[in-house]
């Protein structure tokens, strides 16, 4: 048993729902109790979809358990087929139905429906949402795809499939659009986008493309590997998030299908490089950032943070255990410890300990950062309703890099403002606990200090005393670096066996650690 307050991922059947909901003419019959219908709201409320997800739940009750839940399931499949007339169906069990072992696949098969019926085996007690989505997509591709048509090479331009975008994904809607434009500009046409708005007929045509683009490895990796093995279809797996990654992506595609990347690279439409070099951005240098989310987005974010914004990545982690190895490797390169966990409290503790100036994470990290008074931008699922913006806001491609620059820099203090706060920390309007002026007032700053004191769980740190003058000096340090200053000073004192911290110690530590 694992104690959980908040979860990063839902159960695997929610991943299957994300695939089914993204597609067209597909219906999912889920053997599940009534409460599991809550999952509909993720799509209709949080993503604001205007249609119910194409899911029929059997909603069996306790009294059905003794009787015939199998019959209930078959009726549900038959009724759903008649009512919704899908071109393909997927069937499976939720965590509870898995325990009663009704074999949805066999039961649906026995009905001899005139459409493909794809059984899912998603072990709910071992796996989670993204894995469920990947597995579902893989089953669908394996069942519905056909060998390439003969005229595959008759086309004048090369084609590719965009794989991995699902319902409820972080900016998938806009990434599909942005990436499509980028590829067409490069001279590559899109054969099929899937699961996003794909029909079963589209899946059948997947093998016609020259190659696949794995947009989100968490979801499309398994299917892309299978397509490669089966049809010899190569795939590109560099998520083009950030300027450099997009350039790498363009080059790899160009090489693969032998087109000239230069036109696209030359007029690269991203403002990020110039914005980042402009003097106003000097204040971004060395900002300490903590990154947590799914593997695709944290790997991309780490690279952008370091290479494109000159931040210092002080922590990196993911809840995608399937990709832990990649994240560990990236962390090693950055000289930090990777945090691989799906426990929200672990992440909170790490943020507390590191006192970064910016947190890049999911909606959970948004809450963690808010509570600790740290600036935050959302970079990965799971996200809430406000992270499905009305405006076009891709993460991928050159336009995506623009959107990233804006959303990451926005929560931070502006350059000059930071200096003024530092210089005139006792100005009554400019007080230490002020928030960035462009963000308006927020009551959370006071808590930052409180949170810092709670942090002293380590006995050694508890033994340290802060003299009144040191405390006063500390209080004059602007809030956005205060946590770090405090932590540095305490580390410094512990290392040198200093029991009472004075102003002197604080300045010595400052000299020792630099900014």
């Amino acid at each position, binding site marked *: 048993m694992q104690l*959980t307050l908040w979860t990063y991922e839902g159960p695997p059947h929610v991943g299957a729902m994300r695939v089914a909901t993204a597609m067209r003419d597909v219906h999912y019959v889920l053997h599940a109790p009534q409460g599991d219908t809550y999952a509909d709201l993720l799509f209709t*409320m949080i993503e604001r979809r205007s249609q119910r997800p194409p899911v029929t739940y059997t909603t069996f009750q306790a009294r059905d358990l003794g009787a015939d839940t199998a019959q209930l399931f078959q009726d549900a499949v038959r009724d759903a087929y008649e009512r919704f007339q899908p071109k393909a169906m997927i069937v499976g069990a*939720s965590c509870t139905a898995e325990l009663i072992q009704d074999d949805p696949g066999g039961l649906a098969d026995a009905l001899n429906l005139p459409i493909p019926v794809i059984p899912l085996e998603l072990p709910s007690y071992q796996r989670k949402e993204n894995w469920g989505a990947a597995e579902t997509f893989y089953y669908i591709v394996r069942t519905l795809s056909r060998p390439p048509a003969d005229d595959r090479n008759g086309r004048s331009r090369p084609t590719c499939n965009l794989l991995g975008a699902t319902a409820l994904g972080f900016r998938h809607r806009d990434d599909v659009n942005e990436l499509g434009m980028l590829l067409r500009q490069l001279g590559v046409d899109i054969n099929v986008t899937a699961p996003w708005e794909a029909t079963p007929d589209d899946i059948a045509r997947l093998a016609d493309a020259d190659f696949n683009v794995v947009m989100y490895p968490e979801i499309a990796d398994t299917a892309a590997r299978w397509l490669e093995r089966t049809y010899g279809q190569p795939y590109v797996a560099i998520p083009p998030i950030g300027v450099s990654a997009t350039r790498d992506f363009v080059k790899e595609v160009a090489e693969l299908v032998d087109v000239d990347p230069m036109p696209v690279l030359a007029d690269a439409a991203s403002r990020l490089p110039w914005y980042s070099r402009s003097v106003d951005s000097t204040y971004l240098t060395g900002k300490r950032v903590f990154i947590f989310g799914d593997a695709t987005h944290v790997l991309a974010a780490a690279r952008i943070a370091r290479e494109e914004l000159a931040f210092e990545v002080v922590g990196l982690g993911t809840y995608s255990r399937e990709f832990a190895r990649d994240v560990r490797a990236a962390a090693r390169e950055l000289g930090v410890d990777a945090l691989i966990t799906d426990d929200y409290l672990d992440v909170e503790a790490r943020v507390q300990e590191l006192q970064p100036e910016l947190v890049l994470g999911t909606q959970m990290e948004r809450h963690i950062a808010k509570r600790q008074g740290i600036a935050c931008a959302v970079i990965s699922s799971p996200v809430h309703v406000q992270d499905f913006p009305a405006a076009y806001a891709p993460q991928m491609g050159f336009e995506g890099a623009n959107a990233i620059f804006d959303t990451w820099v926005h929560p931070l203090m502006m350059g000059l403002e930071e200096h003024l706060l530092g210089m005139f920390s006792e100005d009554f309007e400019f007080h230490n606990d002020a928030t960035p002026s462009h963000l308006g007032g927020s009551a959370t700053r006071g808590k930052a200090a409180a949170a810092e004191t709670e942090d002293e769980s380590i006995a050694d740190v508890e033994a340290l005393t802060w003299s009144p003058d040191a405390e006063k000096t500390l209080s004059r340090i602007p809030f956005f670096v205060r946590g770090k200053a405090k932590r540095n000073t305490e580390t410094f004192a512990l290392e040198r066996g200093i029991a009472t911290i004075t102003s002197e110690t604080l300045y010595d530590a400052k000299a020792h650690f630099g900014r």
Partner: protein
Amino acid sequence: MTPPTTTGAARAITNVDERPVLRERGQREVFCGLTGIVWMHRKIQDAFFLVVGSRTCAHLIQSAAGVMIFAEPRFATAIIGERDLAGLADANEELDREVGKLLARRPDIKLLFLVGSCPSEVIKLDLSRAAERLSRQFMPDVRVLNYSGSGIETTFTQGEDACLASLVPELPRAAGDARSLLVVGALADIVEDQFRQTFADLGIDNVDFLPPRLSTELPSVGPGTRYLLAQPFLTDTSQALENNGATRLSAPFPFGEEGTTAWLRAAADAWDVPERHFNAVTRPGRDRAKKAMERYRERLAGRRIFFFPDSQLEVPLARFLSREMGMELTEVGTPYLHKEHLERELPLLPAGVCVSEGQDVDRQIDRCFAAEPDIVVCGLGLANPFEAAGVTTKWSIELLFTPIHGYEQAADCAELFARPLSRREALAI
């Protein structure tokens, strides 16, 4: 949403108080009883709710609560893993260990509910024995109780019922036959304060509320106890109270001026409060409520409303909206129709309204489109698809999260239904 087609499914028409009731058994689109934790964990301030379930259960609560984390929540899920499925002995050990860790971290917790889920019930993990075992270990600091919030046993608000029912055996036995009043069902604190004051003005003291705000303030119950249900979904709690000798005061539910007055009157009658005194005490509240509701009556009168089954508040709210707001009822769906507790409500519904129990969601959506209502009351999963199809909605979960009981909230209750209509009219896009 999809156009209507019809297929045969389990349905039956039966009579309740000579009123035809459409009973359906098909796909339900209702949360399970775990959802009650979202408001119950705020109501009882020293209680913690530990769901023993799956990742789905954790995800449900998180989705229903909207991950609005202002403080560390007083609920969590112990997620059953593969190893627990392999051996129940280990599952029990694991549970004890997790509870131990939890209580060590939260010394402020005095009451722990182990909440059963579908998986825990299907694998027959006996939470009542676990609760006894843990109670023995942690008493007197922490009392450990259990109830089921599972979707195979409970819908949505039945979780609160199951929770309160599990508390009843813990209530101290009232000494003697002295009369006391118990108000049953979680109410907003402010509503509780208002009712307390009104009862005091009526001369009824010795009033308690279940659930109490603190688990250390459990009310006593005995043969002298008369209880008033503040919520219509408290079947098991009611039964448990009767077993302890308490007597239910039959009344409509305190929604709107009419409902609140009748509800208060049930208590006043039991306490022999003179009519003149009752009128003098309630007059100001009644007048205020009527006055405040006036402006919404203008908006709501003549509008057609359709209720999907969700909170079990449907029948009393339909009564309020039809009688006091002049709305026209099309279908009033409820997950469960408790004839006895609604005995004073059902006769107040206009003739000809379709009352339905249970659900077959696709067929009900067809009926809803056919009825052409002006506003639909439904769960979160259905709301946006209806709005996108041009149908105004009110999400029912809000009815549990907003104070709507009593005189001072009568207009607020009406406003919840008026706002979506006003909004649609205000929007020029």
